């Protein structure tokens, strides 16, 4: 795990992309999550992210470590931004390096799915009309790597790999 942190600073996926991957890594996958200017038919002016920072940093590190252990990825970097973000700003960067593309894609995807289930972080949408609302999320399970979510209504890759 090269980087795993929650930060207020603007994110730059290309910076982490350049940092990962050695001579044995034939694939480096980078993902940027960006703020959308619309959601469920409403115009979004800004997204505000709140977090339980001390726990979030440790959960993010745990998620990245598990991804390295459970896939063939050689290195992972992940940063999640918090605070108020305007549309097009980057909220999440995940980069995974591996010998081959499948492992790099799998590791990157696993980190994203896991953090959506476990990372103690919340977002409030602020709309163009001045109203706002906290988005409904996933109830974290109590076992690392599991998603015994009481509100779970979707499945995800790797869900059975406990």
């Amino acid at each position: 795990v090269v980087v795993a942190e929650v930060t207020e600073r603007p994110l730059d996926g290309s910076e982490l992309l350049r940092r990962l991957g050695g001579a044995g890594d034939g694939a480096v996958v980078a993902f940027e999550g960006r703020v959308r200017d619309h959601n469920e038919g409403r115009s979004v002016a800004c997204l505000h992210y709140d977090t339980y920072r001390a726990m979030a940093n440790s959960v993010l590190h745990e998620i990245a470590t598990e991804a390295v252990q459970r896939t063939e990825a050689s290195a992972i970097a992940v940063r999640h931004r918090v605070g108020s973000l305007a549309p097009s700003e980057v909220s999440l960067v995940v980069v995974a390096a591996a010998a081959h593309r499948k492992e790099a894609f799998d590791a990157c995807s696993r980190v994203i799915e896991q953090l959506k289930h476990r990372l103690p972080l919340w977002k409030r949408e602020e709309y163009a009309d001045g109203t706002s609302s906290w988005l409904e999320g996933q109830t974290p399970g109590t076992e690392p790597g599991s998603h015994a979510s009481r509100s779970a209504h979707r499945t995800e890759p790797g869900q059975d790999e406990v």
Partner: protein
Amino acid sequence: VTSTVHLAILLFGKHRDIAGRAVVELDLPAGATVGDVRAALSQHPELGSSVEGAAVAVNRRYERDEAPVSAGDEVALIPPVAGG
């Protein structure tokens, strides 16, 4: 000798808005569990039913309802998470 456990429960996201504060104080009997914390918060005048669907973290780890809580533990009410 103390027969109660005093806890300051950390609130986040929607719970912080609903309660209008970042911390809620609870006094529970010695031997209390995460389930007791959840039950007590469900009786809170502002939080009430919003506690349904939330997780509880003790010392920065998600814990089951059976897990014990002690004085000095860092206990947080975690609303459904929504990163990304």
